[in-house]
């Protein structure tokens, strides 16, 4: 009688319905990244630009795409935490549905939100001069790749939402995960200017490999410092793929398991 996929899709629909009922969520999740685009393009862009083909905006956009997708982890996490604390979880758990449906449905719903956000950002980027040179197919592939990365990260969000005691803690924990990852990376400036030790961290950082991979897919060449020649710098796409699979393989089972036990605490 179980239909895990249909059940998950119903939960996904609910996530989308939430966006319709509270349009602010959608507006704020798109405004923030668009502001980042404008901020970096016009405020910092002038000083970081040095010698980049097509200008800083070409370099910046992949970084901001990845950062945005990474930040949605916090939204997933607080959504889960809210459901856990409001007693709503008891309702779900007393329904004859697969226990994994709720969490799977949520990750899918948040990915759908990411589609809208990425499209808006792409448009904003285009307006301020972002022009990928690799052709439509590769650009679409890059976006798919970004969505996949967002999807894998949303499982970390689910896990944080399940283990945190309240929504405030969730925000702090999500911040602790996403902030160092996005800023100790090549997202906004080449890593070549960093201290040596940081360069190693930055090059192996999944955010960096993702940014490097999307840059390549958008037709941009990456530059590397001390780590030039390392595996992630040579094969950012493969490396990112490995990271995504590792994240999913690690966090899906522990999150589903945690979810099953959560009301027993």
């Amino acid at each position, binding site marked *: 009688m179980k239909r895990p996929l249909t059940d998950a899709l119903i939960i996904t629909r609910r996530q989308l319905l939430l966006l319709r009922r509270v349009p602010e969520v959608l507006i704020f999740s798109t405004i923030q990244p668009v502001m980042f685009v404008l901020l970096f393009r016009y405020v910092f862009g002038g000083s970081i630009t040095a010698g980049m083909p097509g200008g800083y905006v070409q370099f910046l956009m992949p970084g901001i795409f990845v950062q945005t997708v990474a930040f949605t982890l916090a939204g997933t996490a607080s959504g889960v935490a809210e459901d856990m604390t409001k007693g709503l979880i008891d309702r779900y758990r007393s*329904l004859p549905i697969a226990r994994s449906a709720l969490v799977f449905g949520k990750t899918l719903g948040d990915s759908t939100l990411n589609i809208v956000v990425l499209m808006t950002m792409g448009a904003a980027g285009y307006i301020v001069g972002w022009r990928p040179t690799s052709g439509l197919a590769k650009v679409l592939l890059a976006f798919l790749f970004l969505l996949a990365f967002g999807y894998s990260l949303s499982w970390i969000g689910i896990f944080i939402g399940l283990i945190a005691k309240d929504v405030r803690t969730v925000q702090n924990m999500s911040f602790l995960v996403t902030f160092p990852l996005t800023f100790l990376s090549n997202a906004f400036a080449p890593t070549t200017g960093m201290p040596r030790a940081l360069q190693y961290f930055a090059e192996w950082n999944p955010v960096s490999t993702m940014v490097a991979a999307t840059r390549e897919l958008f037709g941009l060449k990456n530059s590397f410092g001390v780590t030039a020649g390392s595996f992630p710098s040579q094969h950012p796409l493969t490396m990112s793929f490995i990271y995504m699979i590792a994240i999913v393989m690690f966090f899906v089972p522990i999150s589903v398991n945690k979810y099953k036990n959560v009301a027993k605490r």
Partner: protein
Amino acid sequence: MKSVVAEQLVKTYKSGNVRALDGLSLDVEEGTVLSVLGPNGAGKTTVVRILATLLAPDSGSATVGGIDVVRSPEKVREIIGLSGQYAALDEVLTGWDNLVMFGRLYHLSKKQAELRATELLERFSLTDSARRSIKTYSGGMRRRLDLAASLIVRPKVLFLDEPTTGLDPRGRQEMWGVIEELVTDGVTLLLTTQYLDEADQLADDIIVVDHGKVIARGTSDALKKQIGGEQLHVVVEQSNIAATMEIVAKVSQANVLLDEGLRRISAPVTTGSSALIDVLRLLDGVGIHPLDIALQRPSLDDVFMSLTGHAAEESVAAAEGKKMGKRSRK
């Protein structure tokens, strides 16, 4: 046939080291109503959560509709409805959204789910607020919608955890009406309550629970009988309390209770007015003149009082604080 059977349930919460259930057993005959009556912290929610497969007992066993709740929780979930102590609804969505979504999760088609939502909203007088977000609902409306959500697939067995707590008198009356209708339709119902009149009004059978144990069970009438026919109340001066208690105990041959604030001594008596006369004569013999003396037909409050050694209303007040604490966790 028994629709719900629980045997020797034990549950200890690790955090806090509370033995919430301490060998609790109960059963509900098909098509009847069992009320689990108890003060805050008695273990009511815990037993409901175990029966509704939300919580596993440490030991003991339970079946619902003949199905083991620990071994086949999925099968149990298909025949039960649960309306927990706190409304379990999606606050952001509208009443309509909630019912349709839960209907879909109960595997109804889109059409069926919408039809059922319309029916239920109508039945619970929520049609006018169907398109409003739950955030704008009053406590009573939430409660009704929550109950509606647990009725989507016409459950065979329904669990209601304190369905009228927090409702105003009118809301309670309405809820009672709805519950009585459900029972007429043949659902088997287990409901928990802190209100004695509620148990009296709705239930065929009552179990009184305190500290995770059943301390009495029976019909409302049987429980009244169990503590004797009538209650004798004597109010005396502070200095005479001890002597009076002794005398009352001698006449009543049962548990004597003292309400210190009111300086009121109470005990069940079986011999009616002759007990009253006996007490008066004995008191007169030692020179005690009661300020007030009365014989009262027992209420369920008295039942509770004599069984738990504390008044139900009192513990309700005391626990309001605790409940607020619980809520603030949200």
